[in-house]
């Protein structure tokens, strides 16, 4: 049961306390704290608005889009751990911004590719906020099945009449409708996962918006039918394409878990605030055990969720760094499994907990909580969407259970 026992602490050095004397973990924590504080201020403005729309230019100016873009390409050159902070703050504000499509998945996909001028140029542009990106990959339960990633790759390249053509369909793609540049996860003729660059207007490619109850999110369907593809638009992952695809899916799941963490913390804070000022029966309602203990339960699950999200972030950051640095040799299957285990735990726990916390917030706000104006519903809808996006808790737990069964088979210790 190595992936689930104390071995993990060795595999992921950051888990062990007091061991960072020689690392820059402390500095990173400070950077993240500052990033968090700035984000919170900036997004607080958006939180007040009914549509919670965040000014895209502002995000670009703040440097949040290029966090992971290398220094040399005008980015900040930091890791997914910093991106995670922004995701959490976007969730806290229930803000509407195409951050997932561009900064999380777009940058993540490009960074996982073999470097090259086209890619580098696109990364540089990404950091400026133009174009906006969408990455068409499977966002449901499919890739969590026993079959793994390739079976769930939504697009396929085939040569016909001398041209390479793309066919496939991906639903519930984050930020698809507003994207100017599409990156499509596809299988090439050798069944190797690759990324295909496309534009929404391009022949054979159709993008349609999918309206959802959570108006703070934008989702859409990307469909391609025999769309001709230029050779220069087909990009290979560094090293093993399968590993690249798996890391990308892990990023999506983790980003959504971070979002749910922020949302849950916001709901807890709002409930505590309300329970402290709202009086009934001559007392603040927070002085009643029913309310107080309800808030305590919210804090417990937020605390547990935060721990899981933190561990998953560390694991993914470490693996991503290895992937970018070493390519194929870097992230072996065991390391990838460790990342996926951590991400599945964080995603399944936190995204389910956030729905519960938002629901409890609605309950403890009483009639006010059920009004549109309270905004609690925005968090409930957002948490419900996050729960399903990039794999339901059930699907993630099914994947975890397969690991447990396999590990159990491995030996008694």
């Amino acid at each position: 049961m190595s992936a689930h026992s104390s071995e993990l602490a060795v595999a992921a050095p950051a888990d062990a306390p007091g061991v960072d004397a020689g690392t820059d973990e402390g500095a990173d924590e400070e950077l993240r704290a500052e990033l968090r504080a700035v984000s919170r201020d900036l997004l607080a403005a958006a939180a007040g608005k009914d549509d919670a729309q965040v000014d895209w230019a502002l995000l670009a100016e703040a440097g949040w889009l290029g966090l992971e873009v290398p220094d040399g390409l005008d980015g900040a050159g930091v890791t997914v751990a910093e991106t995670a902070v922004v995701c959490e703050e976007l969730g806290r504000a229930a803000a509407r911004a195409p951050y997932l499509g561009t900064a999380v998945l777009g940058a993540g996909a490009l960074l996982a590719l073999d470097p090259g001028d086209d890619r580098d140029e696109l990364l540089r542009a990404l950091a400026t906020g133009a174009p906006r990106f969408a990455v068409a990959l499977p966002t449901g339960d499919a890739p969590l099945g026993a079959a793994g990633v390739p079976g769930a790759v939504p697009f396929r390249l085939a040569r016909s009449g001398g041209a390479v053509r793309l066919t496939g369909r991906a639903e519930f793609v984050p930020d698809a409708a507003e994207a100017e540049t599409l990156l499509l996860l596809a299988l090439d003729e050798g069944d190797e996962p690759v990324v295909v660059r496309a534009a929404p207007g391009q022949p054979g490619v159709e993008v349609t918006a999918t309206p959802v109850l959570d108006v703070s999110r934008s989702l859409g369907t990307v469909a391609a039918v025999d769309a001709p593809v230029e050779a220069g638009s087909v990009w290979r992952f560094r090293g093993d394409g399968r590993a690249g695809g798996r890391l990308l899916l892990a990023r999506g799941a983790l980003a959504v878990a971070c979002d749910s963490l922020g949302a849950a913390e916001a709901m807890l804070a709002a409930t505590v605030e309300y329970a402290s000022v709202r009086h009934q029966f001559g007392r603040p309602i927070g002085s009643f055990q029913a309310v107080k203990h309800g808030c305590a339960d919210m804090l417990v699950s937020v605390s547990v969720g935060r721990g899981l999200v933190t561990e998953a972030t560390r694991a993914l950051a470490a693996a991503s760094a290895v992937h970018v640095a070493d390519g194929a040799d870097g992230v072996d299957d065991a390391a990838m499994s460790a990342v996926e285990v951590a991400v599945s735990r964080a995603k399944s726990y936190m995204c389910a907990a956030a729905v519960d916390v938002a629901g409890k917030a609605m309950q403890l706000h009483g009639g006010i909580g059920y009004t549109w104006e309270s905004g609690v519903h925005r968090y409930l809808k957002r948490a419900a969407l996050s729960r399903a996006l990039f794999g339901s808790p059930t699907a993630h737990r099914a994947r975890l259970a397969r690991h447990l069964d396999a590990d159990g088979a491995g030996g008694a210790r």
Partner: protein
Amino acid sequence: MNATLADLAELRATIRDWCRAHVPADWRRAQTGVGDDEFVAFQQAWFQELRRAGYAVPHWPAEWGGGMSAAEQMVLYQELAAADAPRLVLAFVSIHHAAATLLTAGTDEQRRRHLPGILDGEIWVQGFSEPEAGSDLASLRTTARRESRAGGDVFVVNGQKLWASGAAHADWCLLLARSDPAAPKRRGISYLLMDMRSPGLDVRPIRNALGDSHFCEIFLNDVEIPAENLVGPENSGWQVAQATLAAERGMTMLELAERLGNVGLRSLVETCRRPDAAGHRPIDDTLVADRLAGFDTEIAGLRALCRDLVERHDAGTVGDASQAPPAMRRSQDRTAFGDAGQAPPAMRRSQDRTAFGDASQAPPAVRRSQDRTAFGGADASVVKVYYSELLQRMTGFGAEIAGLAAQTELSKPASSGWESGRWLLDFIGSWEWTIPGGTNEIQRTIIGERGLGLPREP
């Protein structure tokens, strides 16, 4: 002394080798159904084995026989759990509560008298609760009347203590008694070290829900305790007790989490991988698989909570309200048993360092961002509530999966925790974690008031 990653890996390998050589083979079978004497002998022998290796009291200051950093202790407890070593059940109060009390509030003389004694196997018991003072510990009624004797002042103690776990084997008792009946509830209590061989003591076992008798009642009838056995100032016993109870948390919770995550989860997975008569494995049901994965996740979450608690203990940032977000306002300190384990921040910070590591160690840099203190002064309560209820859910699930067969397991190995894989026994034993030390109802109130700053009941 911060260990480097390489140092820790080396320590881990050393401990692992040590465990292979020293953890008694098949101790679980051998310790199942044994009598009290055999249990005590086994515990004492194992304690001395650990002591020889330097693993018995790693959290004590180096001068007293400990000296491991928090990171090193974590490695130790991870490896002991992974090797399924016996737990130190009998010495628990001695090495944690008694030692923390002595190190925090004892005199040099008291330390010199008792710390080596503990290392030599002296057993301590906690004499706090009373029939009318359980969750509401501050209403304790046992009296300590100061009187002069030829050899010096003594406290003459009368009353009754309850839930004194292990009193039948104890050499010494950590005693709370009311020394000033006129003072307000928490102001008139003194903290005393009582020799269990004192005349006037009557210890009677209480059978627990499984028929075991490690809980006791202690009846005190004009028991005389020399005044030099007073810990801290007279009538300040309540504050001293905070330190004692605080010692129950932190690293001890981490150890429990590791036990649950190793032998506990492993047994549960094994139970679910065992084919039934028809060859069907429970784990092949999505229903069972989903629950197992949920437990795996919750254990990972528990470990993260514990590590965080230990690291912040170490860093001295536990419960620092100055970093809490505005919405998480800190309430007044509670007067109830509830806040046992929750000393005022200033006191807690210093005592934690003393209790959890060598005070001479340079405290690691405060690496945490402000959100890490989101649970403010209620960290230990969060962990306790979560651990105990996870244990109850896991063992309850185990009992359900094992079905009728669980009923036929009539005893579990002594020296193991409530994750022995005898699921029904474990399940019933799990209430030993949701009730004592402040019931989970009390803990939730602490979390609400200290962790979130919610208003107290009027």
